[in-house]
């Protein structure tokens, strides 16, 4: 009789997907936009990205060691957090900024809440929020594309109220789509971000409920109430000018901090769109994508409690 038989519960076969394959797929999907950004803003963006990713990895290893956990840095989740954090930073900042941001993201937001799968808030976005509160000058000094001059982002110009449309900014929709404007490292190359998002969607990494709800809600409200008269707002500008595409496809789809069900994800997206519009229109900051996602992160457990899948 064979005594080496494995006895375990069904099922006995598994889909070939793991945390690592998913995380690395997202990292790969984000790389084109980063390369585009280095092309546009120069090498300083590259140093920021590399510093952020490397420090996130180092903090992950250190903290897992301290907690006596198995070090799981190869699953790519810390790399992804570091990458997303730096994508939310201006292209020229002192290099200790991404280090501090990564520490806050990994140590406080992720591990203090229990580690992978247990954090309430998106670590990268919470890291950015912390940096923005602590060092607002560094975090709001942006550079013009292909130029060392500092300039304001399109949304900041709009917030100041002196310039009210794209033409006065000397920009076209094409500029916005291909990254020819000031902004955070990862948010400007909209075309390449969408390419990455399509890759992830085809691969089945996320569904489009949250991103579409987010984008559609913001576009609708910007069109209806964003202009000088009712239904005259520039909704294309609203979609392309800030961090919406990066946020909607890559952060409002984060598994851990967004609802489990498709219906819940749609509600999450609508909430994000509303809050972003409110911040852009009436808030103190020109952009509200990150704060809207963080706020909706807080609502995620509530949404999961009340929005259940449809029973058979």
């Amino acid at each position, binding site marked *: 009789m*064979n005594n080496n*038989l494995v006895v*375990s519960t*069904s*099922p*006995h076969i*598994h889909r070939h997907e793991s945390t690592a394959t998913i995380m690395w797929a997202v990292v790969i999907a984000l790389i084109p936009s980063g390369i585009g950004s280095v092309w546009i803003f120069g090498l300083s963006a590259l140093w920021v990205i590399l510093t952020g990713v490397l420090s996130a990895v180092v903090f992950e290893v250190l903290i897992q060691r301290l907690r006596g956990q198995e070090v799981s840095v190869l699953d790519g989740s810390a790399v992804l957090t570091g990458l997303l954090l730096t994508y939310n930073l201006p292209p020229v900042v002192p290099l200790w900024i991404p280090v501090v941001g990564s520490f806050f993201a990994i140590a406080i937001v992720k591990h203090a809440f229990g580690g992978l799968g247990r954090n309430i808030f998106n670590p990268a976005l919470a890291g950015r929020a912390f940096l923005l509160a602590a060092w607002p000058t560094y975090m709001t000094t942006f550079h013009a594309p292909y130029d060392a001059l500092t300039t304001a982002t399109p949304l900041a110009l709009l917030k100041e109220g002196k310039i009210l449309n794209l033409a006065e900014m000397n920009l076209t929709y094409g500029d916005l789509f291909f990254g020819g404007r000031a902004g955070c490292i990862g948010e400007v190359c909209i075309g390449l971000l969408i390419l990455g998002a399509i890759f992830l969607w085809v691969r089945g990494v996320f*569904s489009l409920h949250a991103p579409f709800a987010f984008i559609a809600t913001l576009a609708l409200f910007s069109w209806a109430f964003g202009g000088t008269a009712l239904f005259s707002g520039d909704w294309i500008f609203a979609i392309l000018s800030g961090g919406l595409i990066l946020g909607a496809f890559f952060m409002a789809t984060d598994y851990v901090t967004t609802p489990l069900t498709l219906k819940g994800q749609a509600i999450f997206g609508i909430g994000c769109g509303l809050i972003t519009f409110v911040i852009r229109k009436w808030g103190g900051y020109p952009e509200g994508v990150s704060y809207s996602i963080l706020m909706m992160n807080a609502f995620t457990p509530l949404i999961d409690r009340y929005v259940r899948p449809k*029973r*058979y």
Partner: protein
Amino acid sequence: MTKIDEKKELTEKVSVKNAPLPDTVYISLVQHLGKPNDLLDVGVGDIVKTGQLLAHADALVTSPIHSSVNGKVLKITDWPHPVLGKTKTIVIERDKEAVEEEFVLRSKEEVDGLSIDQLRNIIKDCGIVGMGGATFPSHVKLAPPKPIDSLIINGAECEPYLTSDNRLMVENPKEILEGVCIIAKILNTANVYIAVEDNKPEAIKEFKNQVLDFKLKVLKTQYPQGAEKQLIYSVLKRKVPSGKLPFEVGVVVHNVATAFAIFEAVYKNKPLYERIVTVTGDIFENPGNFKVRIGTPIKDLISIAGPLKKEIKKIIMGGPMMGIAQGTDEVPIIKGSSGVLVLADDEVAEAEEGACIRCGECIKNCPMGLSPALISAAASKGKWDLAKDYGLLDCVECGLCAYSCPVNKNIVQWVKYAKTKIKR
């Protein structure tokens, strides 16, 4: 429901062969859902014939067992059972000289002359149970407490690797249809569907070649479409309420192999002592479908499908999604055994459970619309009521959640455990 890797190509084109008769058979007293056969009709030392009644029980929901060989009762003892650990089992040593007698056949006219009660009694006395794996006594299912309007014959065979129903449909479509006629007559319905998934084109062609009084329903291949509630929804768009049986919505479902067994019982007076079993896995040189006597130890079948290419790591009774891993190759085939799947080391994932990353795949794939990740999380904390709230008792244990889980959560294991905690 989801499309998953099927692996049916290993055996789907291989014709059914008779497995060599085993030297010893191990016939468990429990091969059905219901009261175990506690009244023995034979004793140790008795000479028995193929098809002879061995044991029965005095109850409505039960099904008698019969000898599957000519031979002598060696002992009656506790022996490994593929589902229930160990059960009381009649061990018969085959008499290699004895010739098996032919059964007395019934003509079509005689069968047509049988009353519904007579038919039901033949089916009961021949020990027919649901052959898809549930092993519910067929005569009980053929007497629904209220009239039904539709009968579905289940030829979906959605479990990966398994092809025994497929081969039966390809090789014996006429006999299956005769069996279906008998079932339809007993249930008094003309509204009969034969449901086959579109990954079985040969079987579909065979049915189309027959003169059909029934509706052939070709379904898109999806797992777990063969599960009763899913099949009823796919065919009739009717939903069976939670905790209820199909007759509540006017439907009865029978497996194709059960229809075949009913044909053999009624036309040939043949008790259920053999069935078709898929013996499969990449590990075998000659995987295939075999007509196997009930009680044959699976080690016999493994040697028939061999030689082996690698060392055995896991033996599964049934398919890979819902089958049960065995601790020994001494376990016998029972009436509900549709397949024996053997896996080698490189096919057996012993991955550790990781932290749930809330990807939602289990929820997206759950055919019952439950929240598997939350059920298992609740169960692992001992919160049985919360697990129930997330739909624990509606879980059919199809395994799609654990199959698609990227962090290898043993969701089905938690579900089974939690159910035992709640049922008391």
